[in-house]
């Protein structure tokens, strides 16, 4: 075990000490940007949580509810990202064929690989929780002990979620015969959909905001007091944290002990399971299957319009063929469809009785669709260059410019992204019964956003390519993926704040019953949007192209 940990330590040390000055500056600069984003989130949460805490009688309950929702969401995210990552790390990782033939006991190897899976599938989710918890600590006036408590409890919490996810993967690999990865992935995607449904049911965000719809306030309080998934570690974590904030140390200890004990038990069960099933699962996964697919020669990319050049058609056709045959990709797609469905259902259930509220939500909806598109692009567009993998030489050796390659990738990202965005905004607008002006504004904005986010996805993907990674989840959660997401969210936020000027003019005109439009703010906002979009697309693409030209791949 120490031997394996030492390898990881050496990998980290080499990465830190052998980076060139340029690489260090690039990583450092973008890390700073990420930090800035987290700080902004922190201040946003401080405002929201302070406002909630100030609500009389139910302020403390509201905080607990919000806390439990955050932990429940985090818990589910870690479970599923661990389940997806475990397929690669435990069964298909390249170093396994070497490690499994060393005299290392399989139990040790399995435990080490499980730890590795847990760390890399939970670190980003846990980091995303930091601004929220920091804000919670500040609003409830906590000292340093609170943060030590969070660190202490966070480890068993994340480990339990990961162990559950890894166990899920192991079970699926044991149930299905050798290398039925497609079936395993499909089952997993269905499980994830079910998980999302359970999340929506337990966290019940719609009921949470519908205070006006509950007939009596007592019912509302009962709703707030009801535990959120009481048998999951997320609820114990919420109670331990809120008990500490309220000074009830006895409860902190008991919930902390419960979390720790469950984490140890989950680890022991996982290792016992691994000892029985891991080696046979790994061996079965190595048996290659044969897959035939017959397409008449010359008709491979016939469905791609001929107005694209031969090379672009070949690039699009190749990417599509790989996409539909890569089970990793469509498990991601199914998961995404579940998220979209949950989002649309939530929009439909929102109580929007006043035109003001409806207008506000329909405007914020543009931002939410932008957020969904950014997440879709992180899953499908950002990894596109990295997914060329070791076959990248095929494109580099071909007589085409890097712009053609990046252009092909942009198109294969932009086309589906714009369809998803426009459909999503169209359906949500129909649910919200918004005005035609907002319909056109939101559709136009989302269409442009799809282009900018696709460009940013390809650009950042080229700037931070990970040709050696085998798994989309690893590519997404790499530092480059995080940087892309921060930049994408910043772009969406900036677009939304610029368009707020237009929306305000529109609503003021409606309320006043006369036109308050003037050309100056419209032109200024239009020009600012143009600059923002140009910078958002051209910046990452230019940097990404330059990086690919220099890189020795």
């Amino acid at each position, binding site marked *: 075990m120490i031997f394996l940990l030492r390898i990881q330590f050496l990998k980290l040390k080499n990465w830190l000490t052998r980076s060139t000055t340029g690489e260090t500056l690039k990583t450092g600069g973008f890390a700073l940007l990420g930090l800035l984003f987290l700080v902004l989130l922190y201040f946003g949460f401080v405002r929201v949580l302070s406002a909630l805490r100030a609500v009389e009688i139910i302020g403390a309950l509201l905080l607990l509810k919000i806390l439990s929702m955050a932990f429940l969401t985090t818990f589910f995210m870690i479970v599923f990202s661990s389940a997806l990552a475990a397929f690669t790390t435990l069964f298909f990782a390249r170093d396994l064929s070497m490690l499994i033939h060393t005299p290392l006991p399989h139990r040790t190897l399995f435990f080490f690989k499980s730890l590795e899976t847990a760390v890399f599938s939970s670190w980003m989710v846990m980091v995303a929780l930091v601004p929220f918890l920091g804000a919670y600590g500040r609003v409830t006036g906590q000292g340093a002990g609170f943060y030590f408590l969070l660190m202490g409890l966070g480890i068993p919490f994340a480990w339990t979620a990961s162990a559950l996810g890894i166990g899920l993967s192991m079970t699926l690999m044991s149930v299905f015969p050798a290398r039925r990865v497609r079936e395993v992935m499909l089952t997993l995607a269905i499980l994830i959909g079910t998980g999302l449904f359970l999340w929506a049911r337990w966290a019940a965000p719609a009921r949470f905001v519908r205070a006006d719809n509950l007939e009596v306030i007592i019912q509302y309080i009962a709703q707030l007091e009801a535990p959120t998934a009481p048998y999951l570690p997320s609820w114990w974590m919420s109670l331990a944290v809120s008990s500490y904030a309220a000074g009830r140390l006895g409860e902190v200890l008991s919930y902390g002990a419960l979390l720790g004990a469950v984490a140890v038990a989950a680890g022991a069960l996982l290792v016992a399971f691994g000892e029985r099933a891991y080696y046979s699962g790994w061996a079965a996964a190595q048996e290659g299957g044969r897959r035939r697919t*017959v*397409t008449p020669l010359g008709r*491979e990319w016939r469905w791609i319009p001929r107005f694209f050049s*031969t090379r672009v058609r*070949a690039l699009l056709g190749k990417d599509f063929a790989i996409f539909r045959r890569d089970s990793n990709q469509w498990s991601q797609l199914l998961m995404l469809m579940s998220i979209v469905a949950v989002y649309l259902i939530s929009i439909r259930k929102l109580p929007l009785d006043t035109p003001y509220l409806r207008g506000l939500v329909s405007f914020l909806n543009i931002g939410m669709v932008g957020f969904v598109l950014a997440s879709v692009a992180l899953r499908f567009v950002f990894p596109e260059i990295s997914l060329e993998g070791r076959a990248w030489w095929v494109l580099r050796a071909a007589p*085409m410019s890097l712009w053609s390659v990046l252009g092909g990738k942009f198109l294969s990202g932009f086309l589906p992204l714009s369809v998803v965005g426009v459909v999503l905004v169209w359906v949500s607008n129909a649910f919200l019964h918004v005005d035609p002006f907002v319909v056109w504004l939101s559709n136009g904005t989302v269409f442009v956003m799809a282009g900018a986010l696709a460009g940013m996805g390809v650009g950042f993907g080229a700037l931070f390519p990970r040709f050696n990674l085998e798994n989309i989840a690893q590519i997404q959660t790499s530092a480059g993926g995080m940087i892309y997401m921060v930049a994408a969210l910043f772009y969406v936020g900036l677009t939304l704040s610029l368009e707020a000027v237009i929306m305000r003019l529109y609503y003021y005109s409606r309320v006043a019953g006369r036109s308050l439009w003037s050309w100056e703010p419209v032109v200024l906002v239009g020009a600012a949007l143009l600059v923002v979009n140009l910078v958002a697309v051209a910046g990452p693409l230019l940097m990404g192209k330059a990086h690919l030209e220099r890189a020795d791949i």
Partner: protein
Amino acid sequence: MIKTEGLLKKFQDVVAVDRLDLEVPAGEIFGFLGPNGAGKTTTVKLLTGLLKPTAGRSWIGGIDVQRDPRGAKKIMGLVPDQPYVYPHLTGKEFLRFVGDLYDVDPRRQIKRIPELLRMFELEDMGDELVESYSHGMRQKLVLAGVLLHEPKVLFLDEPMVGLDPKSARLVKDIFQELSKGGVTIFMCTHVLEIAEKLCHRIGIVEKGRMTRIGTVEELRSQSQRAGSLEDVFLRLTGGDEYRALLKYLAE
């Protein structure tokens, strides 16, 4: 057909290719030999436009690789040391993809692809996904892809690795036929017997510098010792230490 002047590639402080001056005429099979880490693959990457040189210039068929990489790439083909291709494409789809990237007329592709698959004994595997191909089959598929666009210059990095004796013989015959037809072949290899039998001239590279160049006979006379190319190579690259290694293993 291949020309370099002072070609230099540095990775930070490490000099991978050190001011390489080289000229290979049309139709020649040029062997590029050297110990591991000598800079052979980096040289191929520089000549095929996969890497930008730190200094110096190179021309393929008179086209400046740095100034007009697309023009140069149109007339060359590359077989890298590791034949990685897209595992989720079928063999035929991969060849179609390559054909379209090199702008080969679709009618020509439809005629040539089955011929190439037959030639490399891959016709039964053409509709199978590449993920089920063995290393040697992937190597042959990449070779078929390279021949599809009929290049004037071929860069081959260890082309025989993973091939069974029958395929290796076939590939050797193909290279000789191509050379007779005027195609220039630049080949890195560790299989010295193949270099000896196939290459018209051989260059020996050490620590990024080309230390010797000539026919096998010329290299023999330079090393002042008769024998196989292996003996000459070991002598020229100071590889006689292998005797020390044998002594160590025997202890």
